[in-house]
């Protein structure tokens, strides 16, 4: 079973690589959006808060799009039926898929981040801090987005509206992300611990709720 679990992870990794084109397109759009943002505010002195807030909001939307796309493709009815009958529980499959989406996005962010920071006129000395903080917050964003996606892809259109209920869960991440921009120095800033704690909280209930919603609403 463990051997096949690692095989499943390897196969999911292959699938993730195949789906990288969509991530690439999303990050190209992010660069365009950042360029427009920087150009439109070129005469204003913004400091770091506004560009970082913009970056966080854009990454938030990219994550939502990516998770939604992967879930609608990977959890269509026929695939979901096989996952449900798999000896691996659906929660584990959801967890593996979420981690692969995370890995995919974070790899792209690490590659694109120097360019994004230059475009947004943020000091490159903050590159590592921003990467670490974003990679921590992205974990929670992906797991909450998976709950949203599992409801929105349901066959029942009336119920898909209830995915709005998960949106408040993103608010703490965005609030703390903005607060972090005030104290960007990673050595004195302990706010990243919030992201770790929030991720652990999400890890406890998100795969359960996601797989429950998939089973009940999509089969």
């Amino acid at each position: 079973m463990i051997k096949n679990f690692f095989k499943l992870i390897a196969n999911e990794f292959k699938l993730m690589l195949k789906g990288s084109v969509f991530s690439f397109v999303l990050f190209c759009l992010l660069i365009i959006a950042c360029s427009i943002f920087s150009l439109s505010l070129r005469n204003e002195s913004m400091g770091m808060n506004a560009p970082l807030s913009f970056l966080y909001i854009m990454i938030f939307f990219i994550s939502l799009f990516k998770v939604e796309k992967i879930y609608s493709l990977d959890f269509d009815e026929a695939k979901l039926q096989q996952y449900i009958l798999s000896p691996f529980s659906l929660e584990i499959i959801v967890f593996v898929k979420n981690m692969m989406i995370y890995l995919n996005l974070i790899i792209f962010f690490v590659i694109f981040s120097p360019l994004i920071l230059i475009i947004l006129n943020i000091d490159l000395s903050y590159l590592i801090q921003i990467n670490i903080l974003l990679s921590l917050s992205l974990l929670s964003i992906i797991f909450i987005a998976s709950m949203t996606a599992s409801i929105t892809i349901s066959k029942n259109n009336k119920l898909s509206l209830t995915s709005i209920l998960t949106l408040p869960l993103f608010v703490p991440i965005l609030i703390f992300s903005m607060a972090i921009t005030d104290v960007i120095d990673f050595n004195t800033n302990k706010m990243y611990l919030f992201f770790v704690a929030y991720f652990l909280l999400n890890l406890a209930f998100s795969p359960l709720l996601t797989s429950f919603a998939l089973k009940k609403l999509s089969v």
Partner: protein
Amino acid sequence: MIEVNNLSFARGNILIYKDINFKISPGELLLVSGANGVGKTTLLSNIVNFTEPLEGNITYHGTSIDNHIASECFLYIGENNFAYDTLTLNQNIDYWLSVHNVNFDKSIKNKSVNFLFQELNLDKKFYQLSFGQKKKLQLLLLILVNKPVWILDDPYSGLDTRSITKINTLFKKKLENKGIIIVASHQKINLRNYKTLQLT
């Protein structure tokens, strides 16, 4: 043995079927037939525990079917394809066998593929396959995943007569090994003895 007692199912306010009763013992095949929309696929979904019935119960060897029993004992092949378009045939086989926790010998895998597909390039992308070939990939799980109960929704659709004969051979072997097969189909099955459930 699978036993279905007084099974009813409703979707919203619409009653799909009422008071379905049947028993299937090891070594038996049940053909579920009926017009479009009478609930053949829904009945199979009920048996595999994808959906819960309105009334009645379904047992496997005397125990109510839950997710654990379904994943341990049932192999379900639905009418829609579950493979990934972006993966090759080979990658799809590897992927779905790992999902079903199957360790296989490469030679067994190749023999099974040859049995169903004859000469076929396994490095072809799934979307490049014909409808019948896509269906055969699903049915390949029948050979490679060893579970006592097969539940198949329209397994013959898109298959040529030669492939249908091969599938019937698989059915015969499964029944000889005391497996249980439930098939929902409009076609009759070319086997000597099987039970039929006509839904109206």
